C-alpha cells in the first residue's frame, strides 16, 4: 500500500487548486449573499473539462478517473461549497447513470454534451413524501403509445433550474415481491423544455445558497419511449447505485469544506492577538488544530479509498463501493460539521460575521450530513453490511 500521490494526481490537484483560488474564491462570498448561480464559473469549468473528468475520451470526457474527480470537487469546495456541489450533482447523479445504464444511443446523444459541459445535468429522486424512503414515490410514468406520460413532482433538486438534462425516477406500475405489492420504479432521461415540465419554487436555503435548488413539476409531460434509462422496473437499483457514487462526490465536498475552514483558521490564529500573544500560542488552539487536522486526514483517506474502490468497479463492474462510499460520506460530513463549527469558535465574534469565510463554510457543511442520504442512512447502509 502506497499513500503517496502519483504525479498525475499531484498535477491535477495543483490545477484544481489554482483554478479554485483564481476563479472560484473571488466569487464565493458574493454568490452566497445574492443566492446567485455562478454561470460564469460553470462555463469556465466546462472549458477546462471539469464537467467530464471521469468520462471516457470517446464519450467526450477527460478520460480520467474517480479520484481525479474527487480531487476536483474537494479543491473547489475548499473555497466554495456551492461550486463543489454543482460539479458533484452533474457528474455523479446525471453523467454517471447515463454512462452506466445508458444505451449506446443514449450515450451518444447525451454524454458528449454533458461531459464537455455544454449541458448541465441534474437528478430527481426526492419528493415531498419520499426522501430516504424511495418506496414513497408518487411521480408516475404511464406508457401511452410511443410515449411515457409523466405526472408528479420532485423537490430539493440540485442544479434544478440551471440543468438541461435530468434523470427522473418515477413509478411505472406495481410488482409482487415476497407476496407483497410493491411499487415498480423506473428511471428516465428528461430534457429541459419538454412540454409539461416546469419548475416550482426556488428553495431559500441555510447554506450552499448559490446552488440552484428547485422543485421539478411534471404535468402530462410526454417523453419518448426510449427515454427510459436502464430496464423498466430497475429504477430503484439505478437510483441507489447512482447515490453510492454521489455520496463519494458529497464526501469530497464535505472534505473540502473542512480543509478550507481549517486552512483559513490556521492563518487566522497566527494573526489574531489576545492577551499580548497570537492565539496560536495558546495550547487550547494548538490542541484543537491538531484534533481537527487528524480528523480531516482520516476523512480524506476514506474519501480517496472510496474513489479508488469505484475506479476498481469501473474496471471489473463487480467491486461494490457502496459501504466505502457510505463510510466516506458519514465520516467526511460529520468532520466537516465539527471542524467548521470549531473554526467559527476559534474566530470568535468574527467567525459569526459574513465577511469571514468560515461563517459560510459552517452553513454549507450542514447539508453534507443531509443530502444524498442522511448520516442516519449511511449508518443503515454500513450496519446492514456488518449484520448480513
Amino acid at each position, binding site marked *: 500500500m502506497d499513500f503517496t500521490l502519483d504525479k498525475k494526481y499531484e*498535477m491535477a490537484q495543483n490545477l484544481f487548486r489554482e483554478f479554485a483560488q483564481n476563479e472560484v474564491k473571488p466569487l464565493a462570498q458574493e454568490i452566497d449573499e445574492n443566492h446567485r448561480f455562478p454561470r460564469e464559473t460553470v462555463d469556465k469549468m466546462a472549458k477546462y473539462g471539469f464537467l467530464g473528468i471521469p468520462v471516457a475520451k470517446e464519450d467526450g470526457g477527460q478520460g480520467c478517473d474517480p479520484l*481525479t474527480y474527487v480531487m*476536483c470537487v474537494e479543491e473547489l469546495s475548499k473555497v466554495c461549497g456551492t461550486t463543489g456541489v454543482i460539479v458533484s450533482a452533474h457528474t455523479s447523479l446525471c453523467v454517471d447513470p447515463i454512462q452506466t445504464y445508458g444505451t449506446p444511443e443514449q450515450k451518444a446523444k447525451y454524454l458528449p454534451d454533458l461531459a464537455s459541459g455544454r449541458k448541465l445535468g441534474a437528478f430527481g429522486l426526492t419528493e415531498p413524501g419520499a426522501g430516504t424512503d424511495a418506496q414513497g414515490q408518487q411521480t408516475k410514468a404511464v406508457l401511452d403509445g410511443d410515449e411515457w406520460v409523466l405526472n408528479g413532482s420532485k423537490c430539493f433538486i440540485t442544479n434544478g433550474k440551471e440543468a438541461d438534462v435530468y434523470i427522473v425516477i418515477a413509478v411505472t406500475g406495481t410488482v409482487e415481491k415476497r407476496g407483497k405489492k410493491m411499487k415498480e420504479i423506473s428511471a428516465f432521461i428528461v430534457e429541459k423544455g419538454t412540454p409539461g415540465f416546469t419548475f416550482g419554487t426556488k428553495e431559500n436555503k441555510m447554506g450552499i445558497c448559490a446552488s440552484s435548488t428547485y422543485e421539478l413539476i411534471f404535468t402530462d409531460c410526454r417523453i419518448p419511449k426510449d427515454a427510459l434509462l436502464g430496464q423498466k422496473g430497475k429504477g430503484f437499483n439505478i437510483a441507489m447505485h447512482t447515490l453510492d457514487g454521489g455520496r463519494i462526490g458529497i464526501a469530497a465536498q464535505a472534505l473540502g469544506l473542512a480543509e478550507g475552514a481549517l486552512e483559513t483558521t490556521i492563518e487566522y490564529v497566527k494573526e489574531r492577538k489576545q492577551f499580548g500573544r497570537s492565539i496560536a500560542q495558546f495550547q487550547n488552539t494548538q490542541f484543537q488544530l491538531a484534533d481537527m487536522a487528524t480528523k480531516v486526514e482520516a476523512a480524506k483517506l476514506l474519501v480517496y479509498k472510496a474513489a479508488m474502490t469505484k475506479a476498481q468497479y469501473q474496471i471489473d463492474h463487480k467491486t461494490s463501493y457502496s459501504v466505502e462510499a457510505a463510510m466516506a460520506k458519514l465520516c467526511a460530513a460529520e468532520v466537516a460539521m465539527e471542524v467548521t463549527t470549531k473554526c467559527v469558535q476559534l474566530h470568535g465574534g468574527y467567525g459569526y460575521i459574513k465577511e469571514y469565510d468560515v461563517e459560510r463554510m459552517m452553513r454549507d457543511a450542514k447539508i453534507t450530513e443531509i443530502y444524498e442520504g442522511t448520516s442516519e442512512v449511511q449508518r443503515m447502509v454500513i450496519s446492514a453490511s456488518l449484520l448480513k
Partner: protein
Amino acid sequence: MKVIVCVKQVPDTKGGVQFNPDGTLNRAAMLTIMNPDDKAGLEAALRLKDEYGAEVTVLTMGLPKAEDVLREAMAMGADKGILVTDRVLGGADTWATSTTIAGAIRNLEYDLIITGRQAIDGDTAQVGPQIAEHLGLPVISYAQEIKIDGDSVVVKRLYDDGYHMLKAKMPCLITALSELNAPRYMTPGGIFDALQADITVWGRANLVDVDDSNLGLKGSPTKIAKASDKVRKGSGEKVNLDAEESVSYIVGKLKDKHVI
C-alpha cells in the same frame, strides 16, 4: 506552421531561494514554476494552434526535473516536448545557454520561435535575442500582441511610451511579455496524456554546430562574484516628532547620506 516555444523552469518565488557554494542557484532544492513570460509565449503559440492548426513544440534546457515544465506545457496543449540536459551544460550563463538552445533548434524545422522576454530568476532578457543572433533570424522583442499575416508576423511591441507595430517575415523569433495574454489552465485529461507522452531528451552530442568552449560554466563569460538571499534589515530608528520637525529631520538624514 511550426512553432517552437522555449520555456524555463524557474524558482517559485513563494518558496525559499537556495544557493550552491559557487554562488549559482541550487535549482534542485527549490520549488519551481514555468517562467511567467514563457508561459505567455506558450499561450500565444497555443492560440496559433487553435486558429491556424500550428504544431507547437516546447523546448527547455535544464536539470532532468525540468521535464516537469514540459509536461505542464503539454497538459496545456503543446504537441511535443524536448529536454536538453547534460552535466557539461550546467552553470551556463546567457551566452552558453543561447548557444546550447540554438544548437538544439538547428535539429528542428520551424516557422516561428517564441521565448519569454526574460526569466524571473536571471532577469537578463538576453537569451531570446541571442538565440536569434546565433540562428541568423530577425527578432522582435517585448511582444504584447501577435498576429499572422500570410508568411509574416505582425507584432505589437511594447515600449515605455507607447508601442511599435512591426512586421517580419517568418522564420523569426519573438520574445513575449506576460502582459501578452492570460495563459490557459491545463486540463485534467491533458495532464493524464502529458504524463504518458514521450519527451525527447537531448544531450551535448545532439547539439549542432556548437563549440565546447561556448558551453556550460566554462563557456560562460559571466562570472558570479557573490549571490545572496535578501538580507534582513535592522529595526531602524524610531523618532516621535511633529510634521515640520520630521521633514527637516528626514532631509537632514538624506543629506548626511549624500542622497540629496
